[in-house]
């Protein structure tokens, strides 16, 4: 009897596995909790995202979803629009040299920035937002035990209150990114009278139950299901926002999110990939908003240190420590084919870190040339002597033993979606054409990018090559370049130089970039671009469009690489 029962259960299980889960089963997600979050107003929109935001504080995990909800409830001193223009939020105006807000001491190489805040902004409990909140936020960030690292933190000597609505930031250097240091997509000003400093900036309760000074107020949050936000009646730009209620629903599967958009069950699908964008083409009910500028540069990272180690000088990688190998790999990747076949031509080939205004450098584009790639490998002592399709070290210069196979692991993350998975497979195939065996592996982003002490693969150096997309927010790449390429940033936990790239000339150039002299900065960045082009610590592939799907009943949605799609939600209107 037992066996017969199981005989019947197996087919049933298979049907669920192969068909229902793939398609229909997932649809039940959208209907499961309909009752509990039915909008009580016609002026309501639904945003769908794949996972819960960890909190309202993007400094904790920086998943993007935290920034998305932060923009609903919290303001910073200033923010950036899709075109890279900085605009004031809590600030009455942006401090500049011209208006006296920025005072530079050329001799000492220091500067001070005076922020004057609007006096008409209050928290949702009626308490005014003042300089005390800004100073409190800075105190929380810089707490040696419970604080957090933010870009430029080391360049701030002190912050002093000048009046109830003004304060001055004293820098020990010329810091070009000062305008968004207390704003942008990651930093908000937190309420001093509401948040508990002892709980710490990263862990405090107000990070999950924030008091609002933004356009919306958090009403309820059912983890793994939805968050509901109501209009903030005390919002300083009243009668904005024009929408009464925002529901953020957690829908893990991108196919389900797409279906919800097409059926009118959702209004915003954040960060859609090119496959979804293509599928939505021609829809009457859904439009795709693309950012006017690109940010997300798909990169192939090389680990220049031996796998499992973090010192590329002491323990160089047996294959990738040879720059000719890296150049050969770059030459073997046919970016145009990947773009046309996988990204429908929507990606843009890119070959320099400095590809977007105002810092664009004229680095010559590397050519796709299989023969040149093979010749480079041959000349570097990598030869397929046993004709098995994979080269071996025969006199190579990396310190690898004779006969060492040119075989490496090649990792990516699944959250990006199918286009990246296919890209990874195509690149692995292209590398096999020149005798490099790339063993594919797909690992969640949370494991790939986690801290070394938590087993993070990149930070602990436990990889050969990986591919993912990244880019700096806003218009100033200085901090990003430091984090990605400086020697100081190759220490696990101190930056993102997971390639363990080590070039003192580049370090000196990065230091030179910390100036307010724009002409000098452009020159410096282009010098860095040339060095990176020569050293190839990573291969720059292409930028993918930053796109959001939105229902046609919403007007005013504008995707932005400089912030989350909710950056201007107060301005959205419903037809």
């Amino acid at each position, binding site marked *: 009897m037992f*066996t*017969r029962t*199981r*005989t019947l259960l*197996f*087919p049933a*299980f*298979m*049907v669920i*596995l*192969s*068909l229902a*889960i*793939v*398609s229909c089963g997932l649809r039940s997600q959208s209907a499961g909790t309909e009752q509990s979050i039915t909008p009580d107003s016609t002026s309501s929109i639904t945003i769908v995202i794949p996972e819960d935001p960890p909190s309202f504080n993007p400094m904790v995990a920086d998943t993007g979803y935290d920034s998305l909800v932060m923009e609903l409830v919290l303001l910073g001193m200033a923010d950036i629009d899709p075109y890279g223009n900085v605009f004031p939020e809590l600030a009455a105006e942006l401090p500049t040299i011209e208006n006296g807000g920025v005072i530079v001491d050329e001799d000492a190489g220091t500067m001070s920035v005076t922020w004057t805040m609007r006096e008409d902004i209050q928290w949702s409990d009626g308490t005014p937002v003042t300089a005390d909140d800004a100073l409190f936020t800075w105190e929380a960030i810089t707490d040696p035990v419970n604080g957090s690292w933010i870009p430029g933190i080391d360049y701030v000597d002190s912050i002093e209150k000048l009046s109830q609505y003004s304060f001055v930031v004293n820098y020990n250097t010329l810091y070009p990114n000062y305008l968004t240091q207390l704003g942008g997509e990651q930093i908000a000003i937190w309420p001093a009278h509401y948040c508990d400093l002892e709980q710490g900036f990263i862990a405090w309760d107000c990070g999950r139950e924030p008091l609002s000074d933004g356009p919306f107020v958090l009403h309820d949050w059912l983890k793994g299901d939805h968050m509901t936000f109501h209009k903030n009646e005390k919002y300083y730009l009243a009668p904005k926002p024009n929408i009464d209620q925002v529901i953020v629903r957690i829908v893990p*599967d*991108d*196919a389900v999110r797409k*279906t919800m958009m097409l059926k009118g069950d959702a209004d915003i699908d954040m960060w859609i990939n090119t*496959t979804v964008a293509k*599928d939505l083409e021609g829809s009457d009910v859904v439009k795709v908003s693309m950012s006017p500028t690109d940010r997300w540069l798909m990169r192939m990272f090389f680990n220049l240190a031996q*796998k*499992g180690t973090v010192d590329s000088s002491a323990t160089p990688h047996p294959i990738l420590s040879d720059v000719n190998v890296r150049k050969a790999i770059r030459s073997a990747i046919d970016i145009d*084919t990947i773009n046309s*076949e996988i990204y429908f031509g929507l990606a843009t080939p890119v070959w320099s870190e400095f590809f977007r205004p105002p810092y664009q450098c004229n680095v010559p584009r590397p050519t796709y040339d299989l023969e040149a790639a093979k010749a480079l490998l041959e000349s570097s002592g990598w030869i397929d002597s046993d004709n098995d399709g994979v080269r071996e070290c025969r006199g190579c210069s990396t310190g690898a033993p004779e006969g060492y196979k040119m075989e490496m*692991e090649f990792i990516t993350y*699944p959250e990006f*979606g*199918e286009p990246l*998975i*296919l890209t990874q*497979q*195509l690149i*692995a*195939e292209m590398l096999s054409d020149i005798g490099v065996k790339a*063993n*594919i*592996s*797909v*690992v969640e982003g949370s*494991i790939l990018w986690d801290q070394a002490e938590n*087993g993070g*693969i990149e930070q602990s150096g*436990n990889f050969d090559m990986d591919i993912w997309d990244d880019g700096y927010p806003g218009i100033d790449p200085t901090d990003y370049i430091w984090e990605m390429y400086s020697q100081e940033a190759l220490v696990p936990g101190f930056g993102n130089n997971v390639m363990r790239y080590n070039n003192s000339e580049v370090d000196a150039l990065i230091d030179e970039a910390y100036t307010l002299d724009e002409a000098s900065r452009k020159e410096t960045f282009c010098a860095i671009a040339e060095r990176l082009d020569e050293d190839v610590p990573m291969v720059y592939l292409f930028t993918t469009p930053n796109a959001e799907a939105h229902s046609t009943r919403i007007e005013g949605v504008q995707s932005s690489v400089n912030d989350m799609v909710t950056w201007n939600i107060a301005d959205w209107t419903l037809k």
Partner: protein
Amino acid sequence: MIPQPSEFSIAIWKRFTRHRGAIIGMVIISLIILLCIFAFLSPFNPEKSSLAEKLLPPSSVHLLGTDALGRDLLTRILYGGRISLTVGGIAVAISLLIGVPIGALAGYYGGKIDSILMRITDAFLSLPSFLVLILLAAILREVELPILQRNSVLTISLVIGALSWMTFARLVRAAFLTLREMDYVSASRALGASDRRIMLGHILPNGIGVVIVEATLQLGYAIIQEAGLSFLNFGIQQPTPSWGNLIYAAQSHFTKYPWLAVFPGIAIFLTIVSVNYIGDGLRDAFDPYKVMEKVGEWT
């Protein structure tokens, strides 16, 4: 008159062949295995992309269509079958290697040994197996050992096998508890046979039927678990096909290109149903009362 071993075998085979489902299952599974073995005869490379032919529907050239990189789906299903069946086979072997000795020791010796081993078995049975499978797979894919590479066939098989041995232990223990009291066992003991000889030479062969039946069922479970792990991206990695990762890759195309999920799903379905019917047939065939009935008719 005591029936001879050959008469038992004949009786078992006769009963098995009378189970229509089992015979059909045997034919189907044999066909699938043969097709997978001879997959190399396919003119298509299962891992090589052909971008000009991507996402083609079934046709006379590509009988089951092509995937998002233009690879022939039939070829990938057949190569994927090799992987899935291999994982299933190795996982069952691992389960047998762990479960049978534990069950044999517990059933033969009884007492404290039985209690300890069965409590361990109970502890494993109480685990939410698939969740633990995912956890183990996630841990093991961070391990870089020469024989346990990330997401390799052996790693996945080990993970599945390590959590599937408990049924074998329970069944073998039950068989040993009964058989150890039989007269022929007492006779062997009286003649001075060692415990090992009694267990391996006398009791195990008489209790092997139930193990074989369970092994066929476990094979089905292991294939499903591999498919589940691969579907969740914890299993065999692309471009190497397995039935699970073929379905995983079909997710985003299901509405437009349903064959990408349906055909691998059918392959899994047919395999699982077949091995279950074979298991069902074997269960009936090994049933001692039915066998004795039949042997009795002949004698």
